[in-house]
């Protein structure tokens, strides 16, 4: 059953000229930053933070935040800065970091310190996610993508050790080396904030999350790849000696609720605000710089299903708005319609945590607030009540392999 529901927005910088991006064939990494206006960003931040604050006060269990670089997709190039603002402007609800981009940091101890600070500032409300970052982010920060996964793994180990092992101690790894690990600041939550691993269903990340018993949060994938994701998670968990429950599963889904189905359907188009896509456009060699996708992953059946799937993950094939609805990458409608659709999603995924990606693009503040009201008053209570009295478990679609 769904235990908690969170709100998410990418905080898009919506004021850039899309015609220019269309002509160039990309809207990130090297898209000229002369198109960024700090004054406009200030207005957008004010609106987005007001909405997040409103969500935390009206019925969401918290908000999700993330991090992207060189990209108008998101005005959050530092998840920890966003999180620290929320730590002091919200009074309740979790702050779900999905997450810190571990491989791009030269000093992961700094991440350990910052997240610990935010956990204390927020009164222990941090959920700490770790991600590999988009391919472009390895280029934007000039960290060798060949070692992305190794650095992810080792940075994670540094951070967990810094939080849990009494200091001072020495760290000598392949990518990180410290004479003294002894951060003064440690998290309020013990042994440390919950770790969640979000992803766009890279099998290696699913496997890694299961090995570490961390919940895996699927980032708005097509519903028909869910069996592949969580079958793998379950396999690895069984090998590791435990049986996953709904609390091992998180699910991000684009949700647009309005008073009528028709209005919601039109407003939902804002999720495709960037040249008709959700994530923007970039050439493949930016999305997949050398070594970012391993040879094993390229050869895997699961990867083939993921990449071959009609999806709106970065680098996926183009997807129409209609197809996005058909594959449950977006649900829209009046509250009753959305509740019915989400019940189907819950049947298939059985997530313990749902994250409503609830506003995007040029959707107006008023429309966003109306959507939030309908979510908190009608959708969230129904979602949490659904199957509360029934046996848990995923109801496999069983068609991924042929989908």
């Amino acid at each position, binding site marked *: 059953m769904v235990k908690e529901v969170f709100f998410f927005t990418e905080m898009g910088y919506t004021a850039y000229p899309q015609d220019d991006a269309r002509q160039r064939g990309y809207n990130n990494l090297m898209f000229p930053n002369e198109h960024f206006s700090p004054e406009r960003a200030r207005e957008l931040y004010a609106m987005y933070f007001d909405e997040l604050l409103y969500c935390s006060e009206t019925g969401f269990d918290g908000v999700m935040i993330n991090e992207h670089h060189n990209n108008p997709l998101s005005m959050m190039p530092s998840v920890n800065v966003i999180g620290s603002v929320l730590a002091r402007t919200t009074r309740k609800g979790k702050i779900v970091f999905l997450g810190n981009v571990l491989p791009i940091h030269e000093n992961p101890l700094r991440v350990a310190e910052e997240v610990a600070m935010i956990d204390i500032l927020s009164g222990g409300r941090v959920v700490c996610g770790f991600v590999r970052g988009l391919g472009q982010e390895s280029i934007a920060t000039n960290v060798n993508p060949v070692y992305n996964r190794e650095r992810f793994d080792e940075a994670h180990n540094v951070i967990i050790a810094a939080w849990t092992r009494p200091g001072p101690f020495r760290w000598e790894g392949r990518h990180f080396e410290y004479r003294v690990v002894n951060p003064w600041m440690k998290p309020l939550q013990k042994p440390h904030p919950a770790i969640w691993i979000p992803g766009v269903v890279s099998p290696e990340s699913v496997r890694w999350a299961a090995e570490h018993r961390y919940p895996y949060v699927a980032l708005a994938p097509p519903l028909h790849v869910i069996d592949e994701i969580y079958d793998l998670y379950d396999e690895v968990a069984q090998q590791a000696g435990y049986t996953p429950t709904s609390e091992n599963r998180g699910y991000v889904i684009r949700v647009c609720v309005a008073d009528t189905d028709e209005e919601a359907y039109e407003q939902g188009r804002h999720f495709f605000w960037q040249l008709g896509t959700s994530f923007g456009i970039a050439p493949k060699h930016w999305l997949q710089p050398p*070594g970012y996708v391993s040879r094993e992953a390229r050869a895997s059946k699961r990867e083939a299903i993921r990449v071959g799937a009609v999806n709106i993950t970065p680098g996926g094939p183009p997807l129409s708005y209609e197809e996005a609805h058909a594959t449950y990458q977006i649900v829209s409608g009046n509250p009753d319609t959305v509740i019915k659709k989400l019940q189907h999603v819950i049947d298939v995924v059985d997530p313990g945590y749902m994250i409503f990606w609830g506003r995007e693009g040029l959707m107006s503040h008023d429309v966003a607030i109306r959507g939030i009201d309908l979510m908190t008053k009608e959708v969230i209570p129904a979602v949490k009540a659904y199957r509360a009295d029934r046996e848990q478990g995923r109801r496999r679609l069983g068609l991924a392999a042929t989908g």
Partner: protein
Amino acid sequence: MSATNGAFTETFVEAAGLRIQLRRGGDGPPLLILHGELGVPGWLSAYAQLAEHFTVYVPSLPGFGQSSRPEWIASVRDLAAWVSWFARDLKLPAPLPVIGSSVGGWVAAEIAIVNSALFSKLVLVAPAGVPPDDGQIIWDYFLHSTRDAFARAFADPAGAPEYARFYGEGWTPDDDRQAEWNREMAARLIWKPYMRSHTLSTLLGGVATPTLVVWGRQDAIIPVSVGERWARAIPGATARVLDRCGHAPELERPDEFVHTVREFLLPQA
């Protein structure tokens, strides 16, 4: 096997702990070829011509082509150590001449810096490793596709038979996967600092091996002016610039390239 008709063998050899794809042709004295960051696409016309005078050894360097990829080779200097062991394990009689292209030239120079006994002569073909003059940059492979890179390596791809032969219409998805695999090895070697060493220019002053630096005048990967830096850095080095030629003279101007190399390696011929 006759070298004159371009015949060569392609085998796998165990050398210095690795399984290596090796192309070999000719029956004269040995000549070692070290390819660049894009890998080696096959038995080039230039190699066939050189095989009329030498036994030409063209290994796919570790991590490139079909050769195995060890985790430990993570820098040009690591690769240089391996190449010297490769020559030892193949029992190539030292000293022998070497031709190194781009990153392969850098590898050859790294060896010559610390071991003057392995190579009799160095031919460095638009070698990487030395930064360009202020205001100039080395073209960034990693912001572009591999297809872009192949085209960029030629001054005039459309006019180059070797471009059509290796990168033209016969290009397959398997070729694409191989190119991506090579690119990944290149990223291991040269991602950062990109295509340059902060110490190489100084260290080149210790090279005691006779050296020829060859550059394409229209090189759009590493500017031709870098060739002057190399020629100044290595005592006694000579430089030759080929016209209507990009970053891969051995592919784009095989006849002129071989002529220039022969003059240097076989001056009495």
